[in-house]
């Protein structure tokens, strides 16, 4: 079958990719749209480095066919910051050193963002479950838990109006 246009809403923008049906969403994001935040780690859904949000749910973009994303909402790590201001979760990752080499970070951030979108006061266990599909091979997970807790506190404070400015997850 000839390549064809696939339209999807990526980080709030309606974009078209010219993609053959056998291609993955990850490949379309990285190669067609230049969104290289999501990483091609294991290519088999084990490592979580390619996690993006598909209609608000964390998915491994290496295991979604590009045409399966037709007409749907995609959020990648590039869409977290707003007007150059980092999302509280991104800032918390930086402040707590929740990364070392950074390869897993975009996927890790998206899994944590998906968690915070439905739960602004996650327990340690809930955070560990949320990142159980994301492998970090350098720093480990303790700092990530700390970062998510810090970001959650900040988001709660800002939504109750008495904290510093921060954008609540969608």
């Amino acid at each position, binding site marked *: *079958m000839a390549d064809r246009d696939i339209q999807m809403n990526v980080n709030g923008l309606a974009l078209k990719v010219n993609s*053959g*049906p*056998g*291609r*993955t969403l990850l490949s379309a994001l990285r190669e067609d749209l230049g969104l290289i935040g999501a990483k091609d780690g294991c*290519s*088999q*859904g*084990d490592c*979580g480095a390619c*996690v993006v949000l*598909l209609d608000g*749910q*964390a*998915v*491994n973009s*290496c*295991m*979604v*066919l590009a*045409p*399966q994303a*037709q007409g749907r909402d995609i959020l990648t790590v590039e869409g977290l910051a707003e007007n150059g201001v980092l999302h509280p979760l991104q800032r918390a990752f930086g402040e707590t050193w929740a990364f070392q080499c950074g390869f897993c970070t975009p996927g890790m951030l998206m*899994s944590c963002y*998906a968690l915070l979108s439905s739960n602004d006061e996650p327990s340690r266990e809930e955070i560990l*479950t*949320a990142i*159980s*599909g*994301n*492998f970090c091979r350098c720093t480990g997970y303790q700092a990530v838990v700390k970062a998510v807790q810090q970001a959650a506190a900040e988001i709660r404070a800002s939504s109750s109006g008495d904290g510093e400015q921060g954008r609540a997850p969608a």
Partner: protein
Amino acid sequence: MSTPQYVAPESLEDALRIKSESGADARLVAGGTDLILRMRDRVFTPKLLLDLRRVPLTAISCTAGEMRIGSYATLSQILAHDEIANLFPALVEACRPFAGPPIRNRATIGGNIVNASPAADLVPPLMAYDANIVLSSISGDRELPLAEFFTGPGQTVIEPDEILTEVRLPLMPPDSAASFIKLGQRRSMAISIVNLCTRLSLAADGTVATARIVLGAVAPTPLRAVAAEAVLAGNDITTALLDEAAQQASRESMPISDVRASGSYRKRMTAVLVRRALSAAWGELGRNNSNG
């Protein structure tokens, strides 16, 4: 990866017609968490990918004495479903350690069944609950016990023109309890070394009316240990009886050695884990036992 055509029809009728015309050349894609790997490895080289994501096959409903789960329902959907948690808790327990959230958001109950992996985590609880499945084609639907579906690793009785559309679980009799146990190398993202589910349903006099012991990853297909079930049926539960059933289940297993574990380890763990699962089910039935 091969480059098949991709089509996402709007109705089940259209999908069944396409499947009828294309047969084995058309392969269903749902979550894709298994299929995409096998396409990349050229194990599968379908000419056509048939995605039923636009067809309403994700519904979960409880009607007429049974729970019906659409074949495109994701594991995340099942995990979040309160009625399933109440009525079929062992199914939810099998979803909980399944891979990680990004996979659970995509992987479907139908995919877990049709892939026919001997280690499929959802199959032992579904078989323990006596699940039926519905296979649809343009000539109609047929319903059959899930236990009769598998014929070997990756092999089933599904016909090239059929689509698995629904899983049906009969409501359990009172005084029933089931327990699922998965042994993997870690809590998440692990293919099971052994997985299994046991169910006990008691008669009014407290004896075992129905016992189910379903073993995964220890045979070419998910396996009902029927001789072990027979050890329990009709009897009062004692710790000795549970021991005997667990040993019998282990004898019925026929595991291979592979990268995850040796056959002899699997066989030993089958006895240990069946015993634990039976104890858990028994404990839940309120018949206190101290020897679990």
